[in-house]
């Protein structure tokens, strides 16, 4: 009997607590457990803590943030998301930014963010060393790494079909590759958009480019969501050929996918410029600028190669990974990041309607 009474009072208490925590926050006086108070509104001390949205691989991100704190003594926390997610988040949070720095991911998305006035211009003293085509003239974003597109082929597949690895974009139209090619969906993946924009440039005009894309469409087994997934699928033998960044292919090879063969299209290839920018209305502008300075410095740029990121570095003083595919060794197109960013929406829509019916 006593037990019963005790039980019912406990339940009643819990109910009250539930309704309080469940709804108490609606009054704005958040009293949730496991939360160290609503410090969103607290004024930042100068030795504050940075928050960084990272657009490249997680292991690289963790290593970079750790090194940054070692080098500067500034505390920073980070979260890794894809470029599209970061842009959507920054856009949605523009009234009350939750992060200070956007670190990594294709510059095309930074261009779009610039057009929407989501970034805070900052020209780092180190930025003048960086080639003009890898940075925004107004300092909204600055390039940190560059990586070319390539083809990943499965050696066993090639041997079975008696083929050589594809060397040009035209090669992908070979009937032997029907249903064997994987690339990502340009709508979700920066990598695939880079490939699409590249094809339009290589073919000489938008019209010819779209003709090519329409011919390529029946060759594609599937369009993946993420840009690097085709590398895994080809490595696993799920598909014959994948279109993705060379540095991702090298990373997969290093992780043990021995059956992967990397080729770079000889008729011209595009490349991604990975960028960094400061998010508008950050509460920690000074620290954010320090972070950008660090990320552009050799110390910041050379973290990647310690954790298997094989992009080329934009700072001429930084020593890039030995395995990286150097842009000077291959036939690159003139990849106009600004144009690519501006035309992005229109081209993706056109592709969705005309090609991917």
């Amino acid at each position, binding site marked *: 009997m006593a037990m*019963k009474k005790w*039980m*019912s009072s406990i*339940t*009643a208490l*819990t*109910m009250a607590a*539930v*309704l309080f*925590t*469940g*709804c108490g*926050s*609606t009054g*704005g006086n*958040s009293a*949730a457990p*496991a*939360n160290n108070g*609503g410090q*969103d*509104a607290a004024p930042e001390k100068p030795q504050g803590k940075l*928050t*960084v949205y990272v657009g490249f691989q*997680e*292991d690289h991100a*963790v290593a970079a943030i750790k090194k940054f704190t070692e080098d500067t003594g500034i505390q920073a*926390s980070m*979260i890794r*998301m*894809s470029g*599209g*997610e970061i*842009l*959507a988040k920054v*856009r*949605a*949070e523009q009234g*009350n930014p*939750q992060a200070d720095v956007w670190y990594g991911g294709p510059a095309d*998305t930074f261009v779009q963010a610039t057009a929407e006035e989501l970034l805070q211009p900052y020209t780092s003293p180190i930025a003048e060393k960086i080639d003009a085509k890898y940075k925004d003239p107004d300092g909204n974003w600055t390039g940190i790494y560059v990586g070319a597109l390539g083809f990943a082929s499965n050696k066993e597949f090639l041997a079975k079909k008696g083929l050589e690895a594809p060397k040009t974009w035209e090669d992908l139209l070979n009937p032997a590759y029907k249903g064997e090619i994987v690339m990502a969906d340009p*709508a*979700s993946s920066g990598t695939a958009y880079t490939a699409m924009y590249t094809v339009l440039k290589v073919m000489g005009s938008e019209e010819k480019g779209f003709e090519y894309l329409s011919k390529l469409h029946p060759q594609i*087994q*599937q369009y993946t*969501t993420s840009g*690097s*997934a085709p590398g895994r699928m080809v*490595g*696993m033998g*799920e*598909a014959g050929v994948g279109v993705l960044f060379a540095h991702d292919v090298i990373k997969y090879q290093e*992780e*043990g*996918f021995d059956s992967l063969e990397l080729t770079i299209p000889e008729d011209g290839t595009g490349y991604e410029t990975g960028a960094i920018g400061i998010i508008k209305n950050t509460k920690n502008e000074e620290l954010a600028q320090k972070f950008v300075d660090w990320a552009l410095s050799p110390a910041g740029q050379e973290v990647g190669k310690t954790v298997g990121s094989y992009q080329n570095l934009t700072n001429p003083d930084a020593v890039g990974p030995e395995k990286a595919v150097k842009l000077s060794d291959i036939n690159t197109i003139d990849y106009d990041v600004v144009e690519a960013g501006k035309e992005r*929406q229109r081209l*993706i*829509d056109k592709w969705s*309607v005309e090609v*991917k019916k």
Partner: protein
Amino acid sequence: MSAMFKRFKREPLLPILIVLVMLCLLVFIVYPLFQIAKSSFVGSTGEVGLQGYQRVLSGGGLFHALVNSLVLAILTATLSTVIAYVFAYTFAYVKVPFKKLFNGIAILPVISPPFVIALSAMLLLGKQGLITKNLLGLENANIYGLHGLVLVQTLSFFPIAFLTLSGLLRSISPSLEEASQNLGASRLKTFLSVTLPLSVPGIANAFLLVFVQSLADFGNPMTIGGNYSTVAREIYLQAVGSYNLQAGAALAMVLLTVTIIVYILQNFWVGKKSYVTVTGKPTGQRRMIESGAVKHGLFTFCMIMSIAVIAFYALVPIGSFIKLWGINNSLTLDHYKYVFSIGQKAIKDTLTLAIVATPIAGLLGMIIAFLIVRKRFFGKKALEVISMLSIAVPGTVIGIGYILAFNKAPLALTGTGIIIVAAFVIRSMPVGIRSGVAALQQIDPSIEEAATNLGASGSKVFTSVVLPLIKSAFFSGLVNSFVKSMTAMSAIIFLISAKYNLITASILAQVEAGRIGVASAYCTILILIMIVALILLNLLVKWMGGKEQSA
């Protein structure tokens, strides 16, 4: 009017409770949805118009994706409900060995992020699949597409149907069935004319739940959908990929409309019926089916299903120790080293927030179920619809909606733990409500009336009469909430922050990067956490007195 006043005098807490619950739902469901509806008409430059809807419809892909989604959802929901019913029936009616094992297995698929099953499906049935290539020697097995999706979604979602149905079937009073059999009906006849009709609301609920889950699922279509586009995936691609929030929101509104129509149809069909089997008269134990073809048939079915599920799950822990599946099969601990060096914070955050969200979701679900089934008040239908709405909204959209809604004062919750807890609660509550409603519909109100007539207050009736009677539904709701929170993905992908990171987001990142080993290691840890939690919850139930006190 005076009657209303009398009611208020007797139950002063009730109106306050109703207002509080309503407020919660308004703030955490209606307001974000309103924000999304608003966004669907507003472009990125602020112009108002129908461009979002126009883009959606001119793209041509939408209608296609919508049909695809509906086909998929119908197939998955039908299959899942049938399988779940057989499982639940075997559980409640048949004396079979390995009952505990079957139960565990039926719950297993809930406790890992769905796209892991998709990965296992690729490893088992893909081009390099263990089964397809190594056992059957098929050269070109293709798992991507509709058939793969149906398989993976059924495996992922039938446990939800099972949790809904098993509590219900166990609570059907044996006396009716005994009466039918004593009057000379065969077992089959009894099943068809007593058991099955009594379980119709449960079946409808299970079907509805799985249907909506399948519609809103985006993890599986992204992993294994191939070129079979679905609405949820298109929404994600629009909102996140093309950065077109307007088109994404417009698509979401279309999906929402479909779901609401389904819900209304369902409600119209089921809601008219009342099934009272718990009358307060003492009932005996059910006589179990102990032999015969029925037993063997059901046992074989459960066994085959279980083996299939085990096969899918064995891959995850095994894969977590294998260097590179299918390529380099040497054993390694590297993946765990990676997880413990990088994923510690995510594990801690996920656990903390899920533990906070679970009791809130469970109790809120039961309270709402109680209000819906037992109470008459102004706005009841609205409460019912709103509370079920959350499950209909694709998680990605809820996530964006939350960011839009809770980004400025007075509700600046972005980046806090509260917003994640709220998403957990809102996303997992509907299942609790459904099972609560299904359980409560079977209890004769006269029991509560008796307590009220004896002078018990409303809260006293709830705690000492209603709660004990719906205990099993309540605890299955708790388990489900915890599990759903631990494995939530689509909604929280937008809500995670540097302050709070979650395991599922990390797994998704690993899957995208193709590190199946690391993803499997995360999942193995997640599954271990779940198993421990389930054992603790079961102990708690036992400790609180598993046996009903008979009067």
